[in-house]
């Protein structure tokens, strides 16, 4: 099978598998005082430091979570609640087209906690409108609890102007959380560097950043929140007080070790991999547009403006699920893009936020390249695409007329 859905999850790296299986045999709870516990603790903290090093942070600033989604929840809810402790700061600024981990979390805060969620619009490439964000921060910045945003969009791959947003929030004295789950392993991330370059005072600017291990070749079931020393969050999970009391619960040493192994490997070859993946990506784009002239690229056409591994195409007049089915039958695994509940597809809210029509959004296909992707994978996709497109066009849209309307 040709696997081109690396944004959903990507195969574990051999180094990560080795680290995982090796560490599974380690006995001892890292919170225990005896030598066995200390051994486990040592492995855990070394892993934490390795992950931190790939993110421009210190080990103490890395909080391991059960998933990227948990990290996002901890950042957004944790910052929100903490920011309500000493003053009323009801506004929560969030760009349109965020991942559901963010969308559903801020919706929950709006429903249950009185958050006034202000959506910052995207431009037609999926990039946050900085003028709108600046205006929202200038208008009574003291009432803003936090800003949260994606580093790069998980669906259309558009890279956000993170440094500019970090600067705007630092200037406004507002904390910023960045969901870097899609960007991690493909773009360099340096939290301390960003804080320095944007002149962030304690507790302001970029203070939190979420990542996930399984998107970079580590195991599923572990994510991390980088939480700057100067930032405080209310915990979501209470208990034994592990991880600075921010996230209680016995820590998964083996998963942390595996995550660290993947992070180190990926960071060491980031530049070369990004270059190689970009070249494959550009071949997919030019090949697909040549094979199917009706296709349209979504997101930023500038190679430097989109994730090295992301291709997002719309095929007007087709259902994305028809294309996915036909490509799957041809042995090529791709995605329709957006998250779905129990496999129930919905038109992408990201494309809708970029001003595209629902028909356009229904015909979306996301092809994502990973570290192990090859020229042969791209060839296989490009070989299968024209036939799949022709047949999916005949199947048309489920929303279109059936023979009963004709």
């Amino acid at each position, binding site marked *: 099978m040709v696997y081109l859905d690396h944004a959903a999850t990507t195969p574990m790296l051999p180094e990560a598998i080795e680290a995982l299986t090796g560490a599974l045999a380690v006995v001892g709870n890292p919170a225990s005082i005896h030598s066995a516990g200390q051994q486990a603790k040592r492995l855990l903290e070394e892993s934490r430091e390795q992950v931190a090093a790939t993110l421009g942070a210190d080990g103490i600033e890395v909080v391991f979570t059960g998933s990227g989604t948990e990290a996002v929840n901890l950042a957004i809810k944790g910052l929100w609640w903490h920011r309500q402790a000493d003053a009323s700061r009801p506004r929560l600024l969030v760009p349109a087209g965020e991942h559901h981990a963010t969308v559903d979390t801020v919706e929950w805060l709006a429903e249950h906690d009185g958050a006034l969620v202000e959506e910052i619009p995207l431009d037609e490439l999926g990039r946050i409108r900085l003028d709108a964000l600046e205006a929202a921060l200038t208008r009574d910045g003291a009432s803003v609890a936090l800003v949260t945003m994606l580093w790069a969009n998980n669906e259309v791959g558009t890279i956000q102007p993170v440094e500019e947003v970090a600067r705007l929030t630092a200037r406004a004295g507002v904390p910023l959380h960045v969901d870097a789950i899609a960007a991690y392993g493909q773009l360099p991330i340096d939290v301390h560097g960003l804080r320095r370059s944007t002149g962030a005072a304690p507790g302001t600017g970029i203070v939190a950043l979420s990542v996930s291990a399984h998107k970079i070749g580590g195991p599923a079931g572990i994510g991390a929140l980088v939480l700057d020393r100067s930032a405080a969050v209310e915990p979501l999970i209470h208990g034994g007080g592990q991880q600075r009391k921010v996230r209680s619960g016995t820590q998964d040493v083996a998963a942390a070790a595996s995550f660290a192994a993947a992070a180190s490997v990926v960071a060491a070859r980031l530049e070369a991999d990004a270059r190689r993946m970009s070249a494959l990506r550009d071949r997919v784009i030019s090949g697909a547009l040549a094979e199917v002239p009706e296709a349209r690229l979504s997101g930023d056409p500038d190679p430097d403006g989109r994730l090295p591994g992301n291709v997002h195409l719309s095929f007007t007049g087709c*259902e994305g*699920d*028809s294309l*996915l*089915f*036909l490509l*799957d*039958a041809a042995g090529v695994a791709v995605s329709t893009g957006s998250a*779905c*509940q*129990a*496999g*129930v*597809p*919905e038109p992408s809210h990201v494309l809708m936020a970029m001003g595209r029509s629902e028909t356009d959004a229904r015909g979306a296909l996301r092809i994502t390249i990973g570290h192990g992707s090859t020229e042969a994978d791209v060839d296989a996709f490009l070989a299968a695409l024209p036939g799949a497109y022709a*047949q*999916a066009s*005949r*199947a*048309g849209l*489920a*929303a279109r007329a*059936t*023979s*009963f309307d004709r």
Partner: protein
Amino acid sequence: MSGGVDSAVAAARAVDAGHEVVGVHLALSRMPGTLRTGSRGCCTIEDSMDAQRAANVLGIPYYVWDFSERFKADVVDDFIAEYSAGRTPNPCMRCNERIKFAALLEKALALGFDAVATGHYASIVTDAAGNKELHRASAWAKDQSYVLGVLTAEQLEHAYFPLGDTPSKDLVRAEAARRGLSVAQKPDSHDICFISDGDTKGWLAERVGTATGDVVDRTGAVVGSHEGAHAFTVGQRRGLHLGTPAPDGRPRFVLEVRPKDNTVVVGPKEALAIGEIAGSRFTWAGEPPSDASTPFECEVQIRAHADPVPAVAVVTGGELVVTPQHPLDGVAPGQTAVVYVGTRVLGQCTIDRTVSAVPVDA
């Protein structure tokens, strides 16, 4: 694959028969519930997961296809429009006609499939000339040929009902258990799938609003009031709350619903007796009769679980007109009259008008 036991076993039998089978679950709502409540409703996330588990056990691919827009337009909105027009629709038939054997079938054919197989209890028989005929299932108690009566020759050509020859539902459940399908003992779904709490009256009231109107007898005399004509069905006895008793003290039944002036007509039970049924929206399930303009003997069934009754049918004046041998009770415009010859489904019409067997002054 709905997530129920019937479609799971139908898929299993299709696999056993040597077909290349792909499981498809229809997403009919953009906001599916999480869990089934009791035996009502379907199309929840639980159902989708059950369908996927069944597909896993059978080793077949599984996909969810979104027909929510078409379902809303063709089934849900049609249901509301029919009630608003004073008719009693059957949304399951509309779904078979417009979704399962139209939107789904046409998409499937375009994607390279040959047929849509479902877990309906009905049989397809090929006649000597190679034409497909729709017949009752061998298990009379579970027979669902009525709700498939809307299928046309073209649709039957690409329909496949692997459960048609099963003697009973219990055997299907036993087979599911034997095959290791987790849905073997899952309760059947009942009622209308998009009205999850089963409260059709309340659901309709939310959508078409309520307005006080008159309840009248057959002479036009006002005998009570109601909160919206759409909530009433021909043949209904309960829930009329009439202040004025009938002169003869006998129970009264809804005889007619007139949405235009928001009026409900009531009268004695015998006035429900219908001597003639007619509808201009009729179809033939396969080859049409050689000469439908000459009256022919048949049986007519007017509800999914009603008994068929001997009748004479004829196509005249653009209508299929069916005259049952004995008057029928509780026939409402909007219902479907399915015409059988023996076990074969000949065709159907949506009932536009009925003729009472009892004149007003009787």
